[in-house]
């Protein structure tokens, strides 16, 4: 059974989240303080973390950093009462994969959690290469010269989405739909921040990217720009 750690200091909301997620067949661990998260996490690693930004003890952004330092793989979805760019971008930069702005619909939350837990690209060939990077889809690892580059699940999904159709230009909206499972979202901050994070890990020089390139006015593609695939 899937287990989700819910970190929120509002008891009623946490309880309600528990009811909704249990109803969807998801087991829930409730944590109400930011500084208690890591203890629970180490003892009983969940499949996904739902993390409120405003927390007593330690704020959500910092908690997010600590989790990422411990585990690259676990998906983190931030819950925020603020839709402000500043908070959202901080959370994403700290390693969150996605965020939900309160108030959200329970169905939306469940769908979002399922997307993040989905095993991606199972039907794909087990190996892809992009430039000098080898992608092992089954193992969920990427290596350069035999050396593994640690990626989060989302970063991995993003890279695979681009790499499986090299040369194709993806709009940000297409990536949002492909990787995040959003049908009608234009919150390009999600894409931008994660592309930056991914580049920081895989590019030789993130200032002059050659593996994931920007097509001005349209979006991104895998490979060097110049040959525009349609």
């Amino acid at each position, binding site marked *: 059974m899937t287990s989700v750690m819910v970190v929120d200091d509002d008891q009623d909301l946490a309880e309600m989240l528990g009811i909704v997620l249990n109803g969807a067949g998801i087991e829930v661990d409730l944590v109400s303080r930011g500084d208690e998260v890591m203890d629970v996490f180490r003892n009983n690693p969940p499949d996904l973390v739902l993390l409120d930004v405003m927390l007593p003890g330690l704020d959500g952004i910092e908690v997010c950093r600590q989790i990422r330092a411990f585990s690259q793989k676990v998906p983190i979805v931030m819950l925020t009462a603020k*839709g*402000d760019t500043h908070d959202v971008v901080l959370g994403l930069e700290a390693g969150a994969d996605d965020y939900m702005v309160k108030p959200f619909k*329970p169905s939306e939350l469940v769908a979002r959690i399922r997307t993040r837990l989905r095993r991606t690209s199972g039907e794909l060939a087990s190996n892809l290469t992009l430039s000098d990077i080898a992608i092992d889809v089954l193992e969920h690892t990427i290596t350069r010269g035999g050396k593994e580059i640690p990626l989060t699940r989302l970063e991995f999904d993003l890279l695979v989405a681009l790499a499986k159709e090299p040369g194709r230009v993806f709009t940000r909206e297409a990536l949002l739909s492909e990787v995040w499972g959003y049908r009608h979202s*234009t919150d*390009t901050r999600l894409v931008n921040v994660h592309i930056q994070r991914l580049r920081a890990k895989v590019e030789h020089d993130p200032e002059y990217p050659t593996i994931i390139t920007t097509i*001005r006015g*349209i979006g991104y593609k895998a490979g060097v720009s110049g040959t525009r695939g349609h």
Partner: protein
Amino acid sequence: MRRLKISTGFRRSLTLRVLSTTFVLTTIVLWVVGSALFNRISTGVVNEKIKSSLSESTLAVYSAQFRFSSGGTTDDSLKKIAQEVVNAKKSIKATDSGREVILIRSAKNLDPVVDIDTVSNRVSYSSIPIELRDRLLNSSEPLWAQSTIQYINGAKVPGIVVGDKISIPRVGPYDIYFLFSFESQTHTLELVKRYLFFSGFMLLFLIIGITWLVIRQVISPVRAAAKIAEQFTAGELDKRMSVSGIDEISKLGNAFNAMAVSLEQQIKRLENLSRVQQRFVSDVSHELRTPLTTIRMASDLIFAYREKFEPSISRSAELLQSQIDRFELLLADLLEVSRFDATEAAMEITSVNINDLVSRCISDLTLISLQKKVVVNFENSSTISIVDVDSRRIERILRNLLTNAIDHADEKPVDVAVKSNDSAVSVSVRDYGIGIDPNLVNRVFDRFWRADPARARVKGGTGLGLSIALEDAHLHNGTLKAWGKLGEGAQFVLTLPKKVGGKIDLEPIEIPFSKL
């Protein structure tokens, strides 16, 4: 063009205005005074000359009369005396000025025994005005007139002619004329004139200089005050005038500074007040979100099981659900407005093709437009108009304009158009529905303003949509303009600069009757 420049410079600069006024007035005064002075002097000099000429000629006549009476016995001796009388300058008080003498037979003397008409220095007879000769006929007194002394060689000198009668034994009555030159007087007057001009110019420059100094003393503090006031207006509320002394200017400075202090306090107070208020709105919105999330989820759960309840509870669950939706929208809009008020709205800039953005918004609204039986016409043109914008905000504007148009279209089509030029891109949304009163058209951007209060509830919406749209447009340095006419529909035009912080030189689409 140049005249315009000078006249605007004239209107702008007090210094220039005062200096030119001073210049004109001083010139006039100096001219009048100088002319009067010169007239006085020249009259005085001329009169003096006339006086001296008269007395000189009187003496000379006496002397001549005496010589003719005592010595003129023969024709030759008469001629000799005549020569001596005419040329005897030294003998009778010949002063600095030259004088000529003409001895000429009187008009009464019809039959002279001998002709002794004589002139000195080849002076011409025409030097004597005929009018003077005529008057002399019937006069017992010596007479004078101003004239020009003419010589046979053509030289002319201004002067005075004094005529008198002389009686010569045997020959009869003769006229004797003394011609006094004004040459030295003219010379003197010329000098006087030159000095007058010179001192006039000196005075003029002095006065202009003094005026300029005075203006500077008065104007420079005024200029400083203006500069401080400008800085103050620009938001540098701590700017004050430096005050020294106790004159009128420093009074101005003190008054100005007192005003500045009072203004600064007021502004700070209001700023603080408004900050507290915005903070409060923002905090309230945030604080409401967490409980609203719980309510939302509880309501969703209840809503999902509504069919298991009895009808009244089931209906209540539906109402609860729809009102929570509305509440959520209102809260989101309220938060957005408070963010604008606090000028905290941040932009997330990306380059997008505006045509794609418009197409997507239209297709997102397909369901609503089908429900309302409205056809949305938009031709996605092949030209790509790339703009640097916060696509979330622009999409929000477009969705708002489109929803509005569809809501008010009255089952008539809605026309959407995109046009661009070098600097900007315009999107126009036009409906042919119920329209807006042209006098109220710009009030649609007011918060919570409803064109038709009776129908507002049915239409839904938060009443903040267009005001947020306008703020979003302004955030991009863009414009959002509205046009409307009752029964003919409404048009909204969003214009955005292509580059961040760019300027709109010309709006690619203009609204029919711009009121802004």
